[in-house]
C-alpha cells in the first residue's frame, strides 16, 4: 500500500467514524418518533409536550414509517421514544406466539435496552370495516359473517397483509378465503371504500374515519386480534425524569377521547393543536401547551440533514468514483465490469435499493448515505472515464514524449485536462442526489423527504409542497454552487475560447 493510499484509507475511516454517527442526533436533546398515521402523530406530540415540560429540547420525527423502522431507529438510538401498541410489541417485535403479560414484555424488551411505559388507556385494536349501509344490506355485523360473502373485494393495508396478527392468519382463523384482497395504502383505502372499489378493509378501532365516514366495525367474534393498548417505548438510556413524565399520563386516554383527538387532528392537520386539546382537558398532567414547531426551523433542520446526506454520499462517491473512472478509462474487461456494475446500480429503483440495504444496515442515515453513494457513482465514474479517454492523442503523445512517468502524466496532464468533464459528472450526481435523498425519509433517515413523506401519509398537500419546493430550491442552489466550483477547479487555460 502506497502512502497516499494509506492516507485515503485513513481519510475514509475518519469520514465514516466521525460524520455518520453525528447524523443521528446527539444526546443533548431527546427525539420522539412516530408511525405514519394520525394517532401516532398526536401521541408523538403529546410525548413532546411532556418532555418539553421537563426542560428537554425535543424533536419529533414525524411519520418515520412502519413498526420495524421505528423499532430499528429506537434500538439504533436515532430516536429515544415512540408510541407503540402492546399487541404489536407481542407479535411483531418480540415475535411471541403466546399472550404476554406486561411484566413479561418489559423483561424481554429490557434485554434489547428498551423500556415500556404503563398503558395510556385506550385499546386501538385492529378491526375490519365496511360502509355501514352496505354491511346492513348484506346483514354483516361480525367477521364470521364474511364467510357467506367471499366475493367482496378487500383492500387490506400493505402492512396488515404481511403481519403475523394480520390478514392471512385472521382469514385462516375464521376459515375464510376472500377471492380478492389487494394491498392498498391506509388513507387511500378509505377513499376506495367510499367509491365502492373495495368493500372491506382493516382499520384501527380509534380511527377518526370510522365516525366521519359512517363505517361499521365488524365484531371480532372469534377473538382473533390481540389487545393493542397504547404505550410509549423508550430507550433505557434516557433520564429517569423523562420516563416519569411519560408515565404520568398512563390510563388518562380512553377510546372515545382518542377518536375525538384523531378527528380533530385530521380535519385541521394540526397535531400540536390536538395535543394541546388533550392537555387542556387533563390539567392534572400539568402541561400548559406544547410549543408550536417553527415551520422554518424545522425546514432548515431538514435541509441541513438533507445536505449532510448528499454531502457525505457525494464525497464518498468522488473518493471512490474517480479512481474507478481512471481504471475504467483503460481498455479491457475490467473497465467493462466497472462501467457495467455502476450502470446496473443506476437501474435499481431508488426505493428498492433503500429497501435492499435496510436489512443489512438498518434504518439509519448511513443506509441512505450508502444508497446515495451507489447512485452517485455512475455519473462520476463514467465522466471520469470519458474525460480521460477523450484527451487528444497528440497531447497524450506529448506527455509521453517528455518522459513523464505514468503517475505524473495522470496528475499533471490527464486529470487536469479531463477536469471539466469530471466536474460535470460530479455536478450531475450532486443534483440527482438532492432529489433522490428525498426518498431517504421513507427509511427514516430524515431530510426534506420527511415533509413529503408525512404529507403523503396524512394527505396534507401543503406539507408535500413544502418538502418538494424546498428540495427543488436546494437542487438549484447546489447547481449554482458547482458553477462556482467549476471556476475554482477547472484550469483557466481550459476556460478560454478556442485558439484563433
Amino acid at each position, binding site marked *: 500500500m502506497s502512502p497516499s493510499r494509506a492516507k485515503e484509507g485513513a481519510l475514509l475511516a475518519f469520514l465514516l467514524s466521525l460524520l455518520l454517527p453525528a447524523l443521528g442526533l446527539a444526546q443533548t436533546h431527546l427525539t420522539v418518533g412516530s408511525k405514519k398515521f394520525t394517532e401516532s402523530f398526536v401521541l408523538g406530540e403529546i410525548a413532546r409536550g411532556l418532555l418539553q415540560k421537563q426542560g428537554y429540547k425535543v424533536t419529533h420525527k414525524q411519520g418515520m414509517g412502519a413498526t420495524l423502522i421505528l423499532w430499528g431507529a429506537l434500538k439504533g438510538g436515532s430516536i429515544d421514544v415512540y408510541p407503540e401498541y402492546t399487541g404489536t410489541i407481542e407479535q411483531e417485535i418480540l415475535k411471541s406466539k403466546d399472550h404476554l403479560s406486561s411484566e413479561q414484555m418489559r423483561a424481554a424488551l429490557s434485554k434489547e435496552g428498551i423500556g415500556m411505559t404503563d398503558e395510556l388507556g385506550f385499546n386501538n385494536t385492529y378491526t375490519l370495516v365496511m360502509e355501514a349501509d352496505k354491511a346492513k344490506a348484506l346483514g354483516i355485523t361480525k367477521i364470521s359473517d364474511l364467510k357467506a360473502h367471499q366475493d367482496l373485494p378487500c383492500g387490506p393495508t400493505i402492512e396488515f397483509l404481511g403481519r403475523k396478527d394480520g390478514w392471512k392468519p385472521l382469514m385462516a382463523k375464521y376459515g375464510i378465503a376472500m377471492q380478492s384482497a389487494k394491498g392498498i395504502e391506509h388513507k387511500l383505502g378509505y377513499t376506495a371504500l367510499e367509491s365502492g372499489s373495495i368493500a372491506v378493509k382493516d382499520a384501527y378501532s380509534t380511527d377518526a374515519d370510522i365516525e366521519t365516514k359512517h363505517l361499521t366495525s365488524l365484531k371480532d367474534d372469534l377473538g382473533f386480534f390481540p389487545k393493542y393498548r397504547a404505550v410509549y417505548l423508550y430507550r433505557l438510556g434516557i433520564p429517569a425524569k423523562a420516563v416519569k413524565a411519560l408515565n404520568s399520563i398512563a390510563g388518562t386516554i380512553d377510546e372515545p377521547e382518542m377518536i375525538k383527538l384523531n378527528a380533530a387532528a385530521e380535519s385541521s392537520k394540526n397535531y400540536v393543536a390536538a395535543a394541546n386539546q388533550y392537555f387542556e382537558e387533563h390539567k392534572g398532567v400539568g402541561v400548559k401547551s406544547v410549543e408550536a414547531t417553527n415551520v422554518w426551523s424545522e425546514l432548515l433542520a431538514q435541509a441541513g440533514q438533507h445536505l449532510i446526506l448528499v454531502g457525505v454520499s457525494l464525497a464518498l462517491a468522488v473518493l471512490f468514483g474517480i479512481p474507478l473512472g481512471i481504471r475504467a478509462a483503460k481498455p479491457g474487461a475490467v473497465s467493462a465490469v466497472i462501467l457495467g456494475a455502476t450502470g446496473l446500480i443506476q437501474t435499481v429503483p431508488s426505493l428498492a435499493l433503500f429497501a435492499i440495504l435496510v436489512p443489512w444496515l438498518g434504518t439509519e442515515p448511513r443506509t441512505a448515505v450508502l444508497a446515495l453513494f451507489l447512485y452517485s457513482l455512475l455519473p462520476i465514474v463514467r465522466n471520469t472515464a470519458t474525460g480521460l479517454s477523450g484527451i487528444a492523442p*497528440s*497531447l497524450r*503523445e*506529448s*506527455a*509521453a*514524449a*517528455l*518522459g*513523464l*512517468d505514468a503517475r*505524473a502524466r495522470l496528475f*499533471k*496532464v490527464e486529470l*487536469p*485536462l479531463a*477536469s471539466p468533464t469530471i466536474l460535470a459528472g460530479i455536478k450531475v450526481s450532486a443534483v440527482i442526489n438532492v432529489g433522490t435523498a428525498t426518498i431517504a425519509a421513507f427509511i427514516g433517515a430524515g431530510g426534506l423527504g420527511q415533509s413529503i413523506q408525512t404529507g403523503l401519509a396524512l394527505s396534507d398537500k401543503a406539507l408535500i409542497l413544502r418538502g418538494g419546493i424546498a428540495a427543488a430550491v436546494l437542487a438549484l442552489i447546489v447547481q449554482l454552487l458547482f458553477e462556482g466550483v467549476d471556476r475554482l477547479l477547472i*484550469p*483557466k*487555460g*481550459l476556460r*478560454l*475560447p*478556442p*485558439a*484563433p
Partner: protein
Amino acid sequence: MIELKGISKQYGEAFAVSPLDLTIPSGQTTALIGPSGCGKSTLLRIIAGLIPPTSGEVVIDGTAVTPQNALEVRRRIGYVIQDGGLFPHLTAEQNVALMARHIGMPAADIDARISELSELTRFPADGLARYPAELSGGQRQRVSLMRALMLKPSSLLLDEPLGALDPMVRSGLQGDLKEIFKALGQTVVLVTHDMGEAGYLGDKIVLLREGSLVQQGSLEDFQIRPADLFVTQFMTAQRSLVAL
C-alpha cells in the same frame, strides 16, 4: 549518432515500416520525407521510443532502446509535433518547465534556461504567462520547441513542425529553425512532406515510400542522381507545386 538496425513496424498483416537500416549522423539535420503513409512519422515515433518496433533495435549514442529504459531515453530526446502538442491547461512557461519541475530542477536554473531558450527561439518573454489558446500558431511552435529543448536533449525530433502554419509564418519560422539548428549543433531528425523544406533545413535527406527506404543523400544527390523513377516523379511533383 542514432542507428536503426533492421527496424520494422507491422500493424496486423500490413507493414507500416518494412525492415530497414538507417544511420542518422550526429550534429547534423536529417530530414525524413515521403508521401503520406510512407511510414516517416511511424519511424520518428519508434526513434522517440513512443511505439515499440515489431523487429530490430534503435541504438542511440551506443545504447540500445528497450522498454525498460524508454522513459530515460525520452528525457534525453526533444520532441515537437505538428500542432505543438502544448497542454492547454498550462501557460507557455508552465509547459516549458513542466518536466524540469517534475525532476526537481532548481527554480533559478529553470528561469535561466527559459530566458536562454526564449532568446534562442525568439519567443517574446511577455508571452510566457499566456495560455496556448492565447498564442498564435507560430508562437505555439516556438514554445513547443522551447519545451523540447528545456532539458538540453542530445537529439531533437520534429514531426512536421511547420505543417499546420500558414505560408508566411511558415517561411519565417523555417529561417529561424535553420539558425536554431545551427546554433545547437545537435542531432536533429525532421519529418516533412515538403522537399523544399527538407532541402533547406536538412544536411541529409531520406526518402521513404510505403514503409521502405528509397534513397538517402543530399538534395544535390536527389536532383542529379535520382535512384529510380519514383524519386524523379516525387521531385517533379514538388517542383510543380513550388512553381504554382
